[in-house]
């Protein structure tokens, strides 16, 4: 029973790492390959996303449940920023609160797929799933 729960916790953290890796490469694809300039909020989300690519594997080999404790703060703050930006893009936050009036505006979606999928939304989904996985792993994993 214990073996089983540890295995599933490992898979959850691994899944979290895979999302972090895909998100990191995706962000780099947008900025380095497509040459879309990242707005300020994107940089803040990167600050909380990129380190997870390195931190999470350290807890995977060998499995160390403590890694969840170190990764969650990053994932939570990143989630909060991405949530803020989604509200900004949706126009639910008034313009006066917009933190980036210079450079690339964070409230303008540079990419629209299917009419509603934009980069901030992708970031929000990624952070949401990562937080969910980490919370479930924290419940299941050996303490």
């Amino acid at each position: 029973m214990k073996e089983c729960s540890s295995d599933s916790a490992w898979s959850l953290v691994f899944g979290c790492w895979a999302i972090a890796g895909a998100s990191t490469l995706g962000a780099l694809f947008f900025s380095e390959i497509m040459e879309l300039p990242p707005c300020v909020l994107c940089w803040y989300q990167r600050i909380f996303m990129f380190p997870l690519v390195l931190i999470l594997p350290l807890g995977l080999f060998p499995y160390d449940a403590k890694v969840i404790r170190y990764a969650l703060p990053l994932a939570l703050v990143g989630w909060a920023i991405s949530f803020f930006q989604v509200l900004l893009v949706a126009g639910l936050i008034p313009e006066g609160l917009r933190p980036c009036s210079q450079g690339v505006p964070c409230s303008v979606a540079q990419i629209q797929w299917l009419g509603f999928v934009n980069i901030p939304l992708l970031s929000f989904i990624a952070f949401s799933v990562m937080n969910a996985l980490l919370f479930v792993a924290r419940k299941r994993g050996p303490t």
Partner: protein
Amino acid sequence: MSRKSKRNQPTSDNQVPQAPEAPPASRVNRIGVFVGAAVVLLLAFAGAALLYKGEKAQSAQTIVAKNQPALANDQSPSFGDPDAKVHIVEFFDPACETCAAFFPHVKTLMLENPGKIRLSLRHVTFHKGSEHAVRVLEAARGQGKYLPTLEALYASQDQWAVNHEVRADLVWNALGRVGLDLERLRKDSSGADIAQRMERDMADARALGVTKTPEFFVNGRPLPRFGLEELQSLVKEELRGAYP
């Protein structure tokens, strides 16, 4: 807890003979899964990057091929033998640092191949206030001093282009040694014909998909990738074709 303590104490006699170094099967699988996922992610990134770059280069080429008339403009300042078979069209912003860095190399290319290269310069104003510098350049052309003015502006660029913004008042300080009739220059630089030419340059830049400076076209071909070496090799290629 119990699992961990078992692993840490393999000393009990009946467990020792089993090779302790071999990791348990699940560990091997985990490493395999992890490395496999990492490889898949990186390959997907590299593949998408190659695909995207290739497609972009191709679409850039079709855009340029469709808009060849936008390249040629007899109103633009042009240098070198008019009958030269290699024609470089450069879109530049006088306030752009990379343009300033490229210019001596373009000049060297022309000096090394006398009579074989013609250079046409097109102005784009991507920096804030760049139109002030362009107006000065166009007015200096009226006095036959375009190139010395451009070189004087490039040489003192850091003094009149502050934080990517052109300070109109400081541009004039850079012109002291060029030997221009400054009074006439001031009058000419506000001319409506210059505004018209600037608009034409910007419209052509848009038609050709020029979003960054400097942008070079050699005999109508864009650089495959931005870079000095790419420019030099493209020019050499065209020279070989035109002057075998």
